[in-house]
Structures are given as structure tokens and as C-alpha cells.
């Protein structure tokens, strides 16, 4: 088939591919309709011009060099269309030669790749965004990727993304690359509204706002001078909406010339806006999870600190420090009610650069007549947050006579430039014992409901620690009182008892030596002989009490000496034998021969006596066995009875003072024997273990390390 030239012309003219013919001087001689439509110029606008007239000069330079090589090849080129938008194309150039082979020009086949290119660019930007988010990068860094892509797709654009603040009323900078910083700062935290520039209006109306000429747009009245100052002539702004239709921010494109978007550009804006929405929502989700974790951590750490010791004065000091170090607050303190009923700052912490300002706040007294801040919280038993109003503060400072809180306090608050605070009363059983105050001086950090909940939780933990400490102190006090009583009583009893005992001894000595008439002697002898065992018992009890008071004051010191352990043990057993005989209880002893080692003889005998007398007392007159031997440098002593025994839950109790596993109605004694025994064994760095079962008997095993 042979095509006639008319048909060829028609085909060329109507081809969807662009066809561009240049003469040998690279001037345009022909473009088809596709080219004219692609770049938005009438056909005659091309004739006589070089390709470079429709491109960025630098890119044109590169292309020109390639064309000079007159090779058949394909090149990516970027044209600038009549509406200033970019047109990406694939150009394949072929040299044209006449019949003699002379170069006469070139023909270019131009395919429009703009759509594909735009989609690719946005897709890769989105991919970058999520890569950044996944590796924990911040929102600004991620949003910058979107701005980079848009600035590469639209000529001369200055893109920025603004974010909605927590309240949903103000826009703050989220990201911007080339928009003048002065301009961004000037519009920071501006209120949104129906006539608040392109962005403020877009956020308010939730609709895209195209201000193609700022100088005449009524929405820009308020910011026109500002735009002029920074040479901004047009602004297109699109609201960034969440999946639920909530405004997250705005995506804005500024131009230094009055300009309206092409439909392709509008499409681009939509794409970028939805990519931005995804990124912001992702970050919000991520941040809220992260924040939640941090808050959980803060509470856990606070509780850990508070549980560290029972002395709350010490641990409460760390709480403001913790709150500040976790970045929750710039300045935090706790005040507590002193013994005189006045509330005073107890511990205070602030970011280090605020140290000088907080100095006057230390040991400050709180005036509960004031209706502000922590005073109010403590007076009214309510926890609350508040954004600080500096004008009120200044007025209060100026007008010191209206019962305003301490001027030093207010001055410090002014110096700190507080933006927001939380005040929490610390309550113990309905009574306010102090308060917790955390404050922020960063403009973006305003406390809200869930921050309040967090601080209430921390406040509750603090109050709990205070309560525990108070209870502990009470119980310690009563233990101390008992110890004091024992100590005083035993010392006071000892002296008269000593003289009483000596008097009785003297009396019995006189009787022995026959100093009285026989008839008197006869009557006196049984009286005196009955007094003496009572005095012995009395003396023993007092010695026990004295031991207890020494233990209470941690005075139990050992008098370690190298001694013949076998003899020491035998001596004590023979002393106790008479007691066992008295109660007709068999005592079976196995004591290893020739044992020796460092020990406190008197204390060791006390241990043996306590355990054997205990076995005698609770042994039901059944045989008691005693064993003593040395194993691996340790003196082992075992005392075993077959008596009443006790249940496992009593096993821990029996070594405590004044405790006894069984009711004290049936058995005499103070219940101190085992306590003293354990203290003596502990002082020897030994161990005492007990095994018992109810009705079957008890066995004690004592292990005392013995040095040779």
C-alpha cells in the first residue's frame, strides 16, 4: 500500500504522539497538534524557536549537547508548559538527511509521560514517608518528603504543611522547605476562621481555598501586608482531613506570582493532601501509643521510687525530679503540711536552665486564702489543670493588698513564663497533707484532661507513701515505747533486786552460821529457803528483759573466745538436768567429744538453755533429745521434743518478741526466749531453723560457724 502525502500529513497531524521537526539550525519548523496541546501554546508560538525555549535553561543545555551528537536515542525531557506546569516526556530524536545524505534537520517523537511521572513521584514520596515513620523518624522529616516531591513537580512552588493544635483552633508549622522562615513564624499559632488567609480558611471551611491573587483576595485582608513583605502572590491551600473528617492541618502552595492551578495541578494537590493525611494520622497514632507508654513508665517509676523506702521525706524528693526528667514538665514541686500546720514547698525540680528562677520557691509557705493554683487545689480538695494567664498574674503582683499569694511566688511564676499547669492535692483519708504542682513553659505544651489523670495517679501514689510512712512511724513509735519501758523497767528493777538478793543471802548465811536462837532458826529456815528460788526466778526474768532491751538498741555484742565447747555444753546441760528431773522429763544427750572453737560461752549456754527449757515446757514430759557436733567448721545443735508442736503458719512468728505459738494461758514466761536465741545465733552469723507439726513435736536446729 502506498500512502499519499495528504494521508501522511493527516496521520502526522492527528497522531497522539507529539511530532516536532527542527531545521539544521535547530529551529522549529513544524509541531503537530499533540505538541501544541501538550504544552498549551498555539502552533505558531513554536515556529522558529529552539526546543530550549520550552525548557529549564540548564536542562535545555544538556539536551542540546545530546542532539549535537546526532544520534538516534531516547531522552527524558522536562518541558515547561504555557501554564507553568511541568510536562515530562520521552523524546526520541532522529536526524533528517536529504537524498545526498546532507543533514537537514531532525525530527522528534515526543511522548507525554507527565501523568506517569507525577504518580511515580508521589508514590515514591509516600514510600519515603513511611520508611521514615517506620524507623521512628519525626513527622516534620516525613512531611518534608512530600514537600520535596511537590516542589519537584510544580515550577516555582513554595510548599508548606501546617498542623492543627490540640484544641483544633490554631495552625502551627508542620513542615516547610523554602517558604521564608519569617513568614512561617508570623503565622504560627494563628486562629483559623472564615476569613483567615488561605490556610486558616481552608482549615475552618474544610474546603480547598485557591487564592490566585493575594493582593485582591478578601480572605487575605488580615495577612496581605505580610504576604507582600515576603513577595508571596498566590496561595492554594487544601485542608488535610482524617479518615473521620477531622481537620489535621492544611497543605499550602505559595507562588511568587499570581497564579491559578491547572486541573492536573489540582489533582496533584489532592494526592499530596491525602498522603499527608495518612502520614499525620500514622504519627498521631504512633505518638499516642508512645505517649501512653511513657506515661505508664512514669507511673511505674514513680511507684518504684515511692516503694524504695518507708521514709517518704526522702523518696518524695525524687518525684518532681522524675516528672521533669521525663519531659512531662519544665518545673514541678511537692509541698507538704508541716507539724505547725503550714504548707511549705518540700521538693522542687526544674529544667537546669530554670534553676536560678526556682531558688526563691524553695521553702515557700503556701497561703491557703489564695484562690489560685495549688492553694486552690488544696483548699477545695480538687485537682485541675489551667492555662496560665499572665495578665492576671501581673495584676496580682501589682496589687499586693488583695490577699494575693506570696509576691515572691508570683514573681517566680512570671519569670518562668508559665503556659499551663496542673495542681493536685495530696489527700490521706480525706485530709489534705500536701500538693503536687507541675507546670510547663513551652508554648506547645498545654495540659489537658488525660495529663491531669496521670498526675492524679502520681499524686495518689505520693499520698499513699505518706500514709504508709505515717503508719509505720506510729507502729515504730509504739515498739520504741515498749522497748523503752523494758529497758527502764529492767534497769530500775535490777538494783533493788540485787540488794534484796544480797540481804536474803546474808540472812541465810546468818542462819547457816547459827546466829539465831534455835527456836527462831526453826521458823526462819523454811521462809528463807522459799524466798531464794523466787528471787532466782525474778533475777532471771530481769536478766531476760535486759537482754531484750540491749537487742532493741542493737547492743548485743559477743565476747568471742577460744573455748572447750564440749565442756561448755556439758556444764550447761548438767545445770539444766535438775529442771528436767523436776518435771520428770527424760533428757537424752549426744555431745561430740573434744570440740573447741571461738564462741561466746555465756551466750552459747543461753541458747542451749532457752531451747532445752522450751522443749521441757512444751514437751509433754516425753523424752527430749539434744545433739551437738561439728560439721564443716560449723557447730550443729539439735533439740528435739515430742510435745504439742505448732502449725507451719506459726513458724515465722515464734522468733519475734512476745510471740508464742500457743496460748499463754497454759504456759508461763515472757515469750522472749526464742527471740533472744535467734538474736544470739544471728550475732554469731549462724542460723536457726525449726520444724514442727501439731501434736507431734518440734525440732530446732542451730548452726553456728566456729573458727579454730
Amino acid at each position, binding site marked *: 500500500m502506498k500512502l499519499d502525502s495528504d494521508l501522511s500529513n493527516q496521520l502526522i497531524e492527528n497522531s497522539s504522539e507529539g511530532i516536532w521537526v527542527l531545521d539544521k539550525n535547530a529551529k522549529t519548523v513544524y509541531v503537530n497538534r499533540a505538541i501544541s496541546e501538550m504544552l498549551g501554546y498555539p502552533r505558531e508560538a513554536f515556529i522558529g524557536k529552539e526546543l530550549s525555549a520550552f525548557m529549564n535553561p540548564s536542562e535545555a543545555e544538556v539536551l542540546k549537547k545530546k542532539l549535537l551528537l546526532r544520534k538516534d536515542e531516547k531522552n527524558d525531557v522536562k518541558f515547561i508548559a504555557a501554564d507553568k506546569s511541568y510536562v515530562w516526556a520521552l523524546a526520541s530524536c532522529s536526524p533528517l538527511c536529504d537524498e545526498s545524505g546532507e543533514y537537514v534537520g531532525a525530527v522528534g517523537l515526543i511522548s507525554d509521560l507527565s501523568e506517569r511521572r507525577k504518580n511515580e513521584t508521589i508514590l515514591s514520596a509516600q514510600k519515603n514517608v513511611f520508611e521514615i515513620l517506620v524507623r521512628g523518624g519525626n513527622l516534620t522529616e516525613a512531611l518534608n518528603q512530600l514537600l520535596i516531591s511537590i516542589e519537584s513537580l510544580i515550577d516555582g512552588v513554595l510548599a508548606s504543611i501546617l498542623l492543627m493544635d490540640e484544641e483544633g483552633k490554631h495552625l502551627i508549622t508542620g513542615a516547610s522547605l523554602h517558604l521564608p522562615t519569617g513568614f512561617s513564624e508570623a503565622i504560627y499559632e494563628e486562629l483559623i476562621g472564615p476569613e483567615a488567609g488561605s490556610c486558616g480558611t481552608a482549615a475552618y471551611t474544610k474546603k480547598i481555598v485557591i487564592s490566585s491573587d493575594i493582593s485582591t483576595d478578601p480572605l487575605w485582608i488580615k495577612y496581605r501586608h505580610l504576604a507582600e513583605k515576603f513577595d508571596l502572590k498566590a496561595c492554594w491551600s487544601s485542608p488535610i482531613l482524617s479518615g473521620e473528617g477531622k481537620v489535621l492541618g492544611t497543605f499550602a502552595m505559595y507562588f511568587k506570582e499570581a497564579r491559578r492551578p491547572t486541573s492536573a495541578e489540582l489533582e496533584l494537590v489532592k494526592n499530596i493532601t491525602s498522603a499527608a493525611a495518612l502520614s499525620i494520622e500514622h504519627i498521631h497514632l504512633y505518638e499516642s501509643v508512645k505517649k501512653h507508654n511513657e506515661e505508664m513508665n512514669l507511673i511505674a517509676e514513680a511507684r518504684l521510687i515511692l516503694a524504695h523506702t518507708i521514709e517518704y521525706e526522702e523518696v518524695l524528693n525524687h518525684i518532681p525530679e522524675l516528672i521533669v526528667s521525663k519531659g512531662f514538665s519544665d518545673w514541678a514541686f511537692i509541698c507538704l503540711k508541716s507539724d505547725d500546720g503550714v504548707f511549705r514547698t518540700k521538693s522542687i525540680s526544674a529544667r537546669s536552665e530554670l534553676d536560678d528562677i526556682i531558688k526563691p520557691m524553695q521553702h515557700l509557705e503556701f497561703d491557703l486564702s489564695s484562690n489560685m493554683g495549688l492553694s486552690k487545689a488544696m483548699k477545695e480538695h480538687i485537682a485541675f489543670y489551667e492555662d496560665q494567664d499572665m495578665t492576671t498574674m501581673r495584676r496580682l503582683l501589682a496589687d499586693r493588698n488583695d490577699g494575693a499569694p506570696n509576691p515572691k511566688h508570683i514573681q517566680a511564676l512570671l519569670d518562668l513564663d508559665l503556659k499551663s499547669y496542673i495542681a493536685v492535692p495530696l489527700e490521706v483519708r480525706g485530709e489534705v497533707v500536701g500538693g503536687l504542682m507541675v507546670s510547663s513553659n513551652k508554648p506547645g505544651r498545654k495540659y489537658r484532661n488525660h495529663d491531669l489523670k496521670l498526675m492524679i495517679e502520681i499524686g495518689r501514689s505520693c499520698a499513699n507513701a505518706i500514709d504508709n510512712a505515717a503508719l509505720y512511724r506510729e507502729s515504730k513509735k509504739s515498739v520504741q515505747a515498749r522497748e523503752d519501758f523494758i529497758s527502764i523497767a529492767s534497769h530500775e528493777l*535490777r*538494783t*533493788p*533486786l*540485787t*540488794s534484796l*538478793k*544480797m*540481804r536474803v*543471802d*546474808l540472812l541465810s*548465811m*546468818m542462819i547457816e552460821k547459827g546466829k539465831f536462837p534455835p527456836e527462831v532458826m526453826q521458823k526462819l529456815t523454811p521462809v528463807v529457803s522459799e524466798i531464794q528460788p523466787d528471787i532466782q526466778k525474778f*533475777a532471771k526474768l530481769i*536478766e531476760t528483759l535486759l537482754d531484750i532491751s540491749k537487742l532493741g538498741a542493737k547492743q548485743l555484742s559477743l*565476747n568471742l573466745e577460744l573455748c572447750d565447747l564440749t565442756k561448755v555444753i556439758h556444764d550447761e546441760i548438767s545445770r539444766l538436768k535438775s529442771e528436767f528431773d523436776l518435771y520428770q522429763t527424760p533428757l537424752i544427750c549426744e555431745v561430740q567429744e573434744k570440740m573447741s572453737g571461738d564462741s561466746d560461752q555465756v551466750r552459747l549456754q543461753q541458747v542451749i538453755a532457752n531451747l532445752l527449757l522450751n522443749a521441757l515446757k512444751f514437751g509433754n514430759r516425753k523424752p527430749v533429745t539434744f545433739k551437738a557436733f561439728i560439721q564443716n567448721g560449723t557447730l550443729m545443735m539439735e533439740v528435739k521434743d515430742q510435745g504439742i508442736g505448732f502449725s507451719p503458719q506459726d513458724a515465722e512468728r515464734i522468733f519475734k518478741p512476745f510471740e508464742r505459738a500457743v496460748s499463754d494461758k497454759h504456759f508461763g514466761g515472757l515469750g522472749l526466749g526464742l527471740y533472744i536465741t535467734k538474736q544470739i545465733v544471728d550475732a554469731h552469723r549462724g542460723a536457726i531453723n525449726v520444724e514442727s507439726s501439731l501434736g507431734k513435736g518440734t525440732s530446732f536446729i542451730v548452726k553456728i560457724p566456729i573458727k579454730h
Partner: protein
Amino acid sequence: METKTILVIEDDANIRDVLKLALNFEGYEVLSAKNGKEGLEVLENNSAPGLILLDLMMPIMNGWEFVEALKNRNIFNKIPIVVVSAYSERAKVIDCTDFVVKPLELEVLLNAVNKNFKVAI
């Protein structure tokens, strides 16, 4: 017959009293003092006793201080001292002839006194 004299230095009046009774019963004359300082005064104003029975824990001048003070007075440092104390380990440290441990056993005390008593030269 020569009188045998003992100086009792003890802050508790009751114990001082019973010691005097017991020592009298054993045939000793007793001089007594409430503390170390008084003890020194008694020594200055009387002929030297054959033994000093000394408590350690006393107000004004305690037993240790008394022993130190005595060392500087040559005429008295030959007198035997029997220390009476609840703290055997402390009594051992002090420079004394013998000691008896509280709570006092009368028999033990009298044995120590009889054993160490030294008739004045």
C-alpha cells in the same frame, strides 16, 4: 586485835548498805563513799584500808577515773581493788586485783574480799 577496814565505793545507797551489813558480818569495818571523788577524800582522811570494793558506773567520778587518780598517789596504789561490775569485759581492762560480776552473789563477793584483803603494813 587489829581492825580490818574496807572502803566501799558504790553510788546506790541500798547496795552500799547491804554490802556494809555483809562485810560487818564477816568482821570488817566499812568506810563508804558515793563516788570516786568521795572515795579519794575518805582515803585522805582515814588510815589506809586493807581493800577497796569499787563500782564502775558512778556519777561525778567513775571507777576507771578513780583507778587512774589512785595511780598518782603512791601511798594508796598498793591497796588491792576488787571491782564490782555488770560488765566483765570492762572490768578485765581496768587495772585491778580482782573482780566480781553483777548480779552479786554474796558468797562469791565475800570469797573475793577475803582472798584479796591485805593487812596494812
